[in-house]
């Protein structure tokens, strides 16, 4: 089977690593590498998605540049991951969204925000858009909001299903039902704890240089937990609306508000931290992804910022604009869920499941 340039380089590097094995203790990649009898496109798709880009193996590599072997696992695996995100993306015509991450993000933001501005203006009247408002639903009826996002959610879920199905088969995983519960739970535990960002010694990763740091892991945890809290806030709000028949806005001490505000603040802090880490990252470890990686962080940050601004803007003339911008961010985030960096979580989780499953074979 012909393989492309990235896979060829990944196979070259893995062949050297498999003869060395000094990095065996750093993360899941190297023990998984040792289980392969040969390196192929398919197991590079698995190994590259097991890599969490912690950089330990690069900083500790006796064969890294300027050695003539020029081994750089994190950089080639990042490229390989990007290719797997592209290759399996459904529908295929959305693949340019991966290759041009920044452009896709900016375009989806502009289109989504415009859409909601038009909708808000249509609902309240152009002249009233800057009038002081207290109630969202005067600006945009709940039913419209719910319809737009329900439809988007369905598109997202179908897209995930199709995309991840392709990946699942490609890395030779058997039917999901034939994989033991223990493999799933171990994989989920690794994903939730970000075990593979601890360096193998618990001191963290090396993306910014030779000293290990736990900050990337911590910031990522803040983002992940913040995201789940905001998601729970939405579920709680839905329950209040349909179950309890209580319409928004909710007061500060209700579950939707507590979860949303806390989660939003965690997202702001976590995303800021991840931006900072991006700035200090050793450039030798990364390959150019045209903004694909950062697009999710930007969207989460903007969504939280505008969301936290809403209660503050209540009763002012800014509420209409801010609501349109916030909903635009959320819609752009939904597009990212389907066709942006958000899918990395699923790819990694499936790779971890495959890794745990292989261990049992």
């Amino acid at each position, binding site marked *: 089977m012909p393989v492309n340039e990235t896979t060829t380089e990944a196979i070259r590097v893995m062949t050297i690593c498999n003869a*060395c094995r000094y990095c065996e203790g750093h993360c899941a990649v190297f023990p998984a590498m040792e289980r392969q009898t040969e390196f192929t496109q398919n197991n590079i798709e698995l190994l590259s998605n097991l890599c969490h880009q912690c950089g330990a193996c690069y900083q500790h590599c006796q064969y890294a540049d300027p050695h003539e072997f020029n081994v750089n696992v994190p950089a080639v695996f990042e490229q390989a991951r990007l290719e797997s995100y592209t290759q399996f993306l459904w529908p295929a015509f959305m693949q340019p969204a991966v290759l041009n991450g920044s452009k896709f993000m900016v375009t989806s933001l502009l289109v989504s925000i415009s859409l909601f501005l038009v909708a808000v203006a249509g609902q309240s009247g152009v002249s009233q858009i800057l009038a002081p408002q207290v109630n969202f639903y005067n600006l945009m009826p709940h039913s419209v909001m719910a319809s737009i996002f329900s439809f988007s959610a369905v598109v997202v879920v179908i897209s995930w299903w199709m995309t991840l199905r392709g990946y699942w088969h490609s890395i030779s995983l058997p039917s999901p039902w034939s994989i033991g519960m223990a493999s799933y739970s171990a994989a989920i535990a690794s994903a939730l704890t970000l075990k593979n960002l601890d360096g193998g010694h618990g001191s963290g990763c090396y993306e910014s240089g*030779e000293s290990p740091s736990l900050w990337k892991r911590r910031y990522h945890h803040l983002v992940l937990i913040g995201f789940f809290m905001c998601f729970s806030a939405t579920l709680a709000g839905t329950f209040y609306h349909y179950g309890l028949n209580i319409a928004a806005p909710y007061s500060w001490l209700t579950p939707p508000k507590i979860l949303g505000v806390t989660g939003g603040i965690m997202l702001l802090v976590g995303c800021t931290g991840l931006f900072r880490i991006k700035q200090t990252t050793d450039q030798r470890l990364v390959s150019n992804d045209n903004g694909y990686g950062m697009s999710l962080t930007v969207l989460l940050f903007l969504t939280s910022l505008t969301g936290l601004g809403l209660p503050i803007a209540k009763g002012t003339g800014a509420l209409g604009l801010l609501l349109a911008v916030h909903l635009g961010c959320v819609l752009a985030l939904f597009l990212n869920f389907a066709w942006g960096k958000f899918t990395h979580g699923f790819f990694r989780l499936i790779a971890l499941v495959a890794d745990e499953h292989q261990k049992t074979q």
Partner: protein
Amino acid sequence: MTSLAHFDVIVLGGGQAGLTAAITAAENGATVCILEIAPRALRGGNTRHTRNLRPMHESGAFPMEGAYGFDEYLDDLLRVTGGDTDHALAELTIRESEHSITWLQDHGVAFQPPLSGTLQLGRTNAFFLGGGKALVNSLYRVATNLGVHTIYEATDIALNISGDRFIDLTYQQVNNTHHISGHSLVAAAGGFEANLDWLEEAWGPAARNFLVRGTPYNKGNILRQLLDAKFKQVGDPGQCHAVAIDGRAPAYDGGIVSRVDSVPLGIVVNNEGKRFFDEGEDFWPKRYAIWGRLIAAQADQIGYAITDAKADGLFMPTVLPPLKSTTIDDLARQINIPADSLLKTIDEFNAATVSGSFDHQALDGCRTEGLPINKSHWARQIDTPPYSAYPLRPGITFTYLGVAVDDRARVQVEGGNPSENIFAAGEMMAGNILGRGYLAGIGMTIGSVFGRIAGREAARHAS
């Protein structure tokens, strides 16, 4: 020439021994400077290619298993050196090795369980998580935090020694000559294994066909100056530790991945197509160290490890694939040795194998009988294509020649007394303890122990 700088302790060489000495001296209050010949990215000497050391331990505490006590350790050392060791220093090294893991952990070095493919080393050897370069990075980080000044690409170091005393030195950096002085000097600049001219003195022209497994920077410049200054030498100048490695490996710095572990699973022939030693004498980890010398003794310093399809997958994967063919005839052509001779060797070998139950993880009963050179274990007929061949060359790892030291790491003057301010650690003095032979992880152990002693004594002298 730039102005004179002064330090309490000057350390020559920034591998484990030098770093340990520098850190220990700094922790004892000394101002310290390390002169490292390599650029920053290639710093650390051969420590960069190492992966473990060998500590004495009774507890089996992580990362060790079981116990490896003083007596057993000393027995092992006496066995491999054939007694060619300074007993007092050997005992000191073994006793002090008990503290090496803790010392390294306290200085940021992480350990891990034994790597896969390392036979039965979990009890005797402690593996660095991420390998030797991770250790080097940690120790440099600690040294920097302690205020140790490291100068990279410090070449052409010229020592000014008066009698047995170090006075000062000059070095070159980017075509500038610099001049520094120090109260104490710690020499930890490794052996001369990367100096083919020097090796040729001992090995003759054969040395030109050696591959240097480690750093290209160990030219022995400092060792030569100390010996020229009439400090007492130890270790056989004509000996080096050489293993059989892939003949296609880089001339320098190939490191661990240049290994070829297929030898015990097949036969090894020279370029006349003839076998020359028992390939199955013992487990490969116990025998690879003699094969460098065996191949160095063959014409053109080359050998070929030949296996058939039955051996595939039974040994550690290699970076470069073997030369392969479905016929012996064609394989011989590929490696450019006489086909009729290779066929004859294999026919005779096949005919001499006695049937037994093959087990590559045990000393099995598969052997040959009636050959001038029999194979003791793992002898199976070479009859299943495709056949594989790996070219083998001697890969030199370290040299034994060094300067004699006492139990305070002070270098010894010919005839007795120690220098008051010149200390040595690491490969430069390892010959005191490992006069010959090989014991996995002993080099790093000596570097760790004598690095600490030299650092402590150098700082004490400077204060």
